[in-house]
């Protein structure tokens, strides 16, 4: 019984980080209508950002703001390279343009680093309960995720810029009519989405070792998360992430773990078909 | 005359907003029935209910005595009911003739593809698109797209045609041409239910008029009677220009462009 409880807590902690990873993807989708297939690479870039910065002596958590800013700039660049020209075109175009840039990024990364293993040890005190232990890195990652999600919420709902982003997400044409510079807003949202992915990668890298190809698994998980939380809904993504963490945490004690993936993806397809706005959104007529 | 289409207590709400409330009227065989009313009166919603895009919350729809309530649009089309859209919906990458062939293939006659070509060409010629047959729909002018909407509906060889503001956005010459087309349609025996904001045109074309206001039927009758109905004028007072047009339209039929 206590094992189940421990799994639930662990699921929530790690799930919130999945949620952060998905937040960037869903923000970009909601605002620009682009499914960003460079998402996995952005997460890996955050991981390598942590590795490279800490190896020059920067304390692990001090890399967060650096990666946030760096990710934002990279995101802006990506927007102008592969997204701007396909805005408003059929979904296939943006899927392929971001996919091709992802190929380039992975290709360059393989040439430079190979697919070897990297590990960034982070020493933090952990919390123990009965026989189970919750590492400090997991707890801090969840706390930071909650803080970032909170900031994002405030930014989107309380600031002029955030409101402009939401207006463009709701109706690009109308936003343009009332004088919102949509192109700037689109590129900004893309940059922000990539920055969030980078930060999530950085946090994940404090928890687990990684390779250049780790991004694929997290990108796939992000898809599941945003479907659970509602497409285009950043706050929903956090809850979706926690939901996914709970699925993993709750199923493990009761069944072979190899079935977890089956459950995840069957759930994914069912939710996508039955609740396209996410489990949490009110069902509209 | 027998009722071709009967609406019986039709209602539809969207998230608490009642767009159509208990609406009943009938379209008689062979007539042109005009449907007017201020913006937001529920006219286009009504069209979407009739051809099955929306499912009514309550009420029945009968077409040639057959209950078609809740029938999906593609089956409604097979019964001989075709429509045009207020905002044109051309199949952009396809040519004019191909657009019309879709109408011919999947409309009332359900023609095989090989036979649909001639029907399609005839429909396109009928609306005056004869020198645009191989043009892709995306490259047509707005007037051309309006004609295409009509041609595509015609190619389905409908019994009842729903026209949703086919005159909106056209210049006077184009309007005159389109009115000619509609008149000739009626001569062919096609029954027409049309929404139109251009009062002079609808007053002159229609045999009867139904006025909608906030989803309910406000009045029904001959154009002249409608134009002088105090309740109708009252409803249009929110839009004085329209109200003026309403009166002028019925006053002198020849002034219709």
């Amino acid at each position, binding site marked *: 019984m206590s094992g189940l409880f421990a799994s639930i807590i662990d699921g929530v902690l790690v799930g919130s980080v999945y949620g952060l990873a998905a937040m960037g993807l869903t923000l970009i989708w909601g605002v620009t209508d682009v499914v960003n297939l460079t998402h996995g690479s952005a997460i890996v870039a955050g991981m390598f950002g942590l590795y490279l910065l800490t190896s020059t002596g920067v304390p692990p958590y001090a890399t967060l703001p650096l990666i946030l800013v760096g990710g934002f700039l990279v995101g802006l660049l990506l927007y102008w390279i592969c997204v701007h020209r396909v805005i408003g075109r059929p979904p296939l175009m943006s*899927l392929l343009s971001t996919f091709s840039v992802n190929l380039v990024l992975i290709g360059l990364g393989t040439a430079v680093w190979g697919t070897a293993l990297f590990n960034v040890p982070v020493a933090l005190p952990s919390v123990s309960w009965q026989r189970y232990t919750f590492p400090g890195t997991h707890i801090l990652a969840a706390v930071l995720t909650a803080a970032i999600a909170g900031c994002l919420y405030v930014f989107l709902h309380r600031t002029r810029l955030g409101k402009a982003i939401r207006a463009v997400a709701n109706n690009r044409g109308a936003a343009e009519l009332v004088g919102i510079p949509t192109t700037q807003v689109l590129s900004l949202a893309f940059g922000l989405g990539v920055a969030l992915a980078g930060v999530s990668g950085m946090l994940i890298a404090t928890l687990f070792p990684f390779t250049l190809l780790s991004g694929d698994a997290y990108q796939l998980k992000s898809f599941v998360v945003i479907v659970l939380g509602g497409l285009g809904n950043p706050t929903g993504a956090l809850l979706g992430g926690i939901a996914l963490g709970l699925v993993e945490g709750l199923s493990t004690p009761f069944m072979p773990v190899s079935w977890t993936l089956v459950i*995840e993806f069957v759930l994914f397809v069912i939710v996508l078909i039955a609740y396209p706005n996410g489990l949490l959104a009110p069902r509209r007529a | 005359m027998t009722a071709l289409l009967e609406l019986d207590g039709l209602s539809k709400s969207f998230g608490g907003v009642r767009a159509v409330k208990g609406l009943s009227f009938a379209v008689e065989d062979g007539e042109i029935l005009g449907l007017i009313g201020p913006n937001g009166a529920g006219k286009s919603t009504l069209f979407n209910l009739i051809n099955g895009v929306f499912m009514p919350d309550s009420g029945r729809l009968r077409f040639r005595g057959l209950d078609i309530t809740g029938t999906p649009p593609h089956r409604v089309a097979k019964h001989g009911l075709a429509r045009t859209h207020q905002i044109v*919906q051309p199949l*952009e990458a396809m040519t004019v003739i191909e657009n019309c062939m879709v109408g011919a293939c999947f409309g009332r006659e359900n023609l095989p593809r090989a036979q649909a070509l001639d029907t399609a060409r005839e429909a396109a010629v009928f609306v005056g698109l004869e020198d645009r047959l191989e043009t892709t729909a995306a490259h047509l002018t707005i007037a051309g797209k309006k004609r295409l909407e009509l041609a595509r509906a015609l190619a389905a060889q409908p019994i009842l045609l729903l026209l949703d503001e086919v005159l909106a956005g056209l210049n006077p010459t184009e309007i005159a041409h389109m009115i000619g087309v509609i008149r000739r349609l009626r001569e062919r025996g096609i029954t027409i239910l049309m929404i139109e904001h251009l009062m002079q045109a609808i007053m002159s074309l229609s045999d009867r008029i139904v006025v909608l206001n906030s989803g309910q039927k406000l009045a029904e009758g001959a154009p002249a009677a409608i134009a002088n109905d105090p309740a109708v004028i009252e409803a249009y007072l929110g839009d004085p220009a329209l109200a003026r047009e309403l009166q002028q339209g019925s006053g002198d039929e020849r002034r219709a462009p």
Partner: protein
Amino acid sequence: MRGGAPGGSAKHAAIVRRPFFWIIALVIAAFAVAPLLGNDVELRESLLLAAVYITLASNLNIMLGYAGYVNFGSIVFFGLGGYLCIYLMGSPGWPLVAAILVAGAGVSLLALLFGLGILRLRGAYFALGTIGVNEAVQAFVSNFDPWGGSSGIYLSTELFQALGGPMQALWSIYFLLVAVMGLSLYLSYAIKSSKFGLGLLAIGQNEDAAAVLGVPTALYKALAYSASAFLPAIAGGLYFFKSAFIQPTDAFDLTFSTEAIVIIMLGGQGTIIGPVLGGYFYEELRGWLLTSETFSHFQLVVAGVLLLLIVLFLPGGLMGWLHGRWPKLRRVLE
């Protein structure tokens, strides 16, 4: 407004009279004969992969190019077909032809069931749904013990004896795959010139308008999805029979279906000859990149840059470019 019947029957005469029918026949003949000249097995292996790519792309094109639905997980048909075929040939010991036919029919049926569910989704939602189906099936098969779970199924190489020994078997498999490719092209062509195809194209342009015009959209989409599963499933059976080995990570590898999409883009969406050009050039390009000492380390980068340039500057693909350059070609090359 009655249609003129006389003109119609002439049109109906036969697809065989049209020049395009013979262009397809020429493509198939070229594939079949080229490696025979000089007994060039290296060319055969390269063309074999091209034929698989063309089969996948051509069938995917029915959903993607005609109906406008981006099926990102189309590889699930190929993988399931492979599994069904290998399984039937293994312990029950079915002959190859029976196994591939049952695999094709079975997967088509399954696609119809999947399709009724996920075809309610549109645009990027549908694309995600197809990825989800592929991943769910892969995860399930990895746990499905009758199919060897994650270890997959190995076929005894002795099975090649039935086709006249290993060397002869490779030729037989090749010709069968070329036939499957040919059937795919004719299927694409037949659908495109049929009423069904007209309906699909209408759906691809504007699904709501198509429904109002009388196109039974749900049925047509499900049929197209199911039809586009049949030949890829057979190709999967042949392909994995050739490997004599199947495991979930190979069978449901998303990169394969992404490659099929890239090929369609390269050749031109919605065209029939597009997947042929795309598949051939893609295979040549990839083959060259992989075997080039200088580029093989950077082949992902080269492939990515090329694809990006095509998407951004040549969205109609090779066929779009050709049609734009010589508009008269439109009548001959579809």
